[in-house]
C-alpha cells in the first residue's frame, strides 16, 4: 500500500472497509446462514481488524494533512468533533436497542426462558444503567465497536502529532502501550462487571499502525510487503490458521496439534487483540495488496462501486448495519426464521446499506461538500465522509 498522492483517495481503503461493514452486519444477525461466508469462520481475525486498521489509515490520511496545513489545534479539534459525532451515534443506537429490548421484555413470556429474561434486569434500574451507558461502561450485545472507536479518536490528536514528527517513536510508543496493557492487564472497566470487550489499550496498536502506514510507513515497508517470501509466509500462515480453526469444530483433529504449540498459542484473545490475530490480519492484508494493486481498473468498475460507497460513509453505514441487524432479527422472530428469510434479510440489509450510502453521497453533492464538486482546502473536504 503506497502512500497516496495528496488529494488522491486510495479506493482500496473504501472498498475493504465497505466489505468489512457488510461482514460486521452479517455477523451481528444471530442464526443467519449467510454469515458462514464471513472471514471469522476461516481464521483468527475478523472484520473488526479490517475496520480498525483502515480507520486508523484514513484518520491519519485525512487529519494528517489537516494538521500539516492548518496546525495541530485545528486538526485536533476536528478529530475530537468526529469523536463526539461517533458518541452521539452510539447513544442513538443505544436508544434503539433499549426500545427493542423493552418491547420484547413486555411482550414475551415463557417459563422455559426464565434465565434468559435476566437480560431485562437492567430495565429495572434505568437510573444506573442509562448513566452507565452514557459513560460507555454499559454496552449491550454487539455495541462494543463504536465505544472503542470513540476512545481511539479521542486519544488520536497527540499520537498524530507524534506520528508526523517522529514516526518510529510514535509506532514504538504504541507497541509499548500494547505490550504493557497485556502484561499489566490494563483495560477499561465495564458495567455491571468485567472489562471492555475490545480493550482500547491493545486495539490502539492496530489503529496507530494503520495511521503509520498512511503517513509513509507503507512505502518504507513496500519491499517487505511485495516480496514473494512474505507472500509465501502469509499463505502458509493462513493455511495454518484455517487448520487450527477446523480443530475447533471437528473432534479428534485436535490431537494433531502439538501440546507445546497449544500452550503457546492459546488463548487467541479478541479482547486484547492477540498477536496471532494481528499476524492473521497482516497476512490477509499483504496478500490483498499483492492481488489488488492501487491502480487496478476493477476499482472503478460498477460492480465494486456499492462496497466503495459504503466504505466512504463508514460511520453512518456502520450504525445503520447495527440497526439493521436488530431489525433483521426482529423480522425473523415476528415473521419467519427459515433459511430463505435469512438470505433475504441479509441481502435486503446490504441493499439498504448501499442505498443509504448512495443517498448520503447525493446529499453531500447537492450541498457542495463532495470532493469532486468543490476542490476546496484539502483535508477539510474528506473529513465528513472520510473517517
Amino acid at each position, binding site marked *: 500500500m503506497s502512500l497516496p498522492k495528496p488529494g488522491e483517495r486510495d479506493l482500496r481503503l473504501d472498498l475493504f472497509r465497505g466489505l468489512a461493514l457488510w461482514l460486521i452486519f452479517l455477523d451481528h444477525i444471530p442464526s443467519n446462514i449467510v454469515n458462514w461466508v464471513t472471514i471469522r469462520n476461516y481464521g483468527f481475525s475478523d472484520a473488526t481488524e479490517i475496520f480498525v486498521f483502515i480507520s486508523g489509515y484514513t484518520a491519519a490520511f485525512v487529519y494528517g494533512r489537516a494538521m500539516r496545513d492548518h496546525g495541530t489545534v485545528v486538526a485536533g479539534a476536528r478529530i475530537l468533533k468526529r469523536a463526539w459525532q461517533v458518541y452521539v451515534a452510539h447513544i442513538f443506537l443505544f436508544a434503539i436497542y433499549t426500545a427493542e429490548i423493552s418491547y420484547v421484555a413486555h411482550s*414475551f*413470556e415463557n*417459563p*422455559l*426462558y426464565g434465565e*434468559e429474561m435476566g437480560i431485562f434486569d437492567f430495565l429495572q434500574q434505568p437510573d444506573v444503567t442509562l448513566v452507565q451507558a452514557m459513560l460507555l461502561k454499559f454496552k449491550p450485545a454487539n455495541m462494543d465497536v463504536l465505544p472503542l472507536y470513540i476512545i481511539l479518536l479521542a486519544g488520536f490528536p497527540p499520537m498524530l502529532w507524534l506520528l508526523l514528527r517522529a514516526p518510529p517513536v510514535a509506532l514504538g510508543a504504541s507497541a509499548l502501550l500494547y505490550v504493557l496493557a497485556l502484561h499489566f492487564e490494563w483495560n477499561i472497566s*465495564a458495567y455491571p462487571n468485567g472489562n471492555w470487550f475490545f480493550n482500547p489499550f491493545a486495539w490502539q496498536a492496530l489503529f496507530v499502525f494503520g495511521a503509520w502506514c498512511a503517513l509513509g510507513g507503507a512505502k518504507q515497508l513496500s519491499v517487505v510487503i511485495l516480496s514473494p517470501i512474505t507472500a509465501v509466509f502469509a499463505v502458509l500462515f493462513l493455511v495454518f490458521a484455517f487448520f487450527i480453526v477446523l*480443530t475447533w469444530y471437528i473432534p479428534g483433529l485436535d490431537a494433531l496439534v502439538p501440546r507445546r504449540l497449544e500452550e503457546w498459542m492459546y488463548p487467541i484473545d479478541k*479482547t486484547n487483540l492477540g498477536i496471532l490475530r494481528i499476524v492473521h490480519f497482516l497476512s490477509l492484508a499483504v496478500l490483498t495488496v499483492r492481488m489488488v494493486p492501487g491502480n487496478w481498473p476493477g476499482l472503478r468498475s460498477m460492480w465494486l462501486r456499492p462496497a466503495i460507497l459504503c466504505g466512504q460513509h463508514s460511520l453512518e453505514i456502520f450504525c445503520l448495519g447495527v440497526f439493521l441487524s436488530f431489525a433483521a432479527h426482529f423480522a425473523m*422472530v415476528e415473521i419467519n426464521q427459515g433459511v430463505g428469510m435469512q438470505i433475504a434479510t441479509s441481502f435486503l440489509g446490504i441493499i439498504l446499506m448501499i442505498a443509504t450510502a448512495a443517498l448520503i453521497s447525493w446529499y453531500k453533492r447537492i450541498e457542495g461538500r463532495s470532493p469532486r464538486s468543490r476542490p476546496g482546502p484539502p483535508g477539510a473536504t474528506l473529513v465528513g465522509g472520510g473517517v
Partner: protein
Amino acid sequence: MKPIVAALLCALCCSAAVAKEGNECITAAGTVAPDFGLPHVARAIAKKKLDVAVVGSASSELNGPTGTNIAYPTRLEAALRSLLPGVTVKVSTYARPREIASEMEGKLPRIIAEAKPALLIWQTGTADAIRGVDPEEFRVALDDGVDKLRAADVDVVFMNMQYSPRTEAMLAVTAYADAMRIIALKREANLFDRFTIMKRWNESGVFDLYGATRTTSVAEHVHDCLGQLLADVVVAGAKLAPAVDKGTQ
C-alpha cells in the same frame, strides 16, 4: 463451514444415532452422540450404582409447584433408570440462578465430596453472557473445573445455553458457546449441544420457541426430551469408554 462439518459429523456418527420410534423430538434433534467415552460412568454401571450431579443455573430447573419433577435432571434420572435396569441411579441437582462458571467451579470440590458422582453434567454459559464475564475468564474456569473433576475421577458432560430466539440479538452468547466447544474438544470432554438441539426443534416445528406463553407445557416437553437425549448420550458414552480410556488418563 458449520454445515459441512455438521454433515461430516453426521456421516461419521450416524451409526451411533439413538433415535427412538414415535418420539418426535428425539428424531428432530438430529444426531446427538458422545464424541468421547465416559470411563467412570462405565465403571459405575458395572458396579450397578450410578451417581450423577447436575451443576447449573436457572435453566436447569423450572419454577412452579411441580418444577423439580419436570426439569431435565429429574427426567434424566427417570430415563437412565429405564435404560439401565438393575442399576441404582441417582441424580442430584445443584442449580442456582445467575451463577457463573467460575462460581460453579469453586463449588465443585464440595459437590464432588457430597454427591460422589461418576458423572457431572455442567450446564453453564447463559449467566456468564448476561453478566458479561470476560470470555477468557469463563474459559479458564471450565478448564480448571475439568482439572478438578479429572483428579477426582469424575466424568464431565458440558451443556451449553438454551436456544432462545426471542433474546438472541440481545444476548451475545457466541463467545461463550465457542469457549465451551473448544474446551470440550481440547479436554476430550463431551459437549451436550443444547443450543443446536433446541434450534433444530424450533426449525422443524416440533416446538414453538417463539410463542409467548404462561403455561409450562412447552417447557415441560422440552425438558423431558432434553433429559432423554442426555440419558442416551450418557449410556452411549459409557459404551464408548474402553476405546478412549487411555486418552483420558
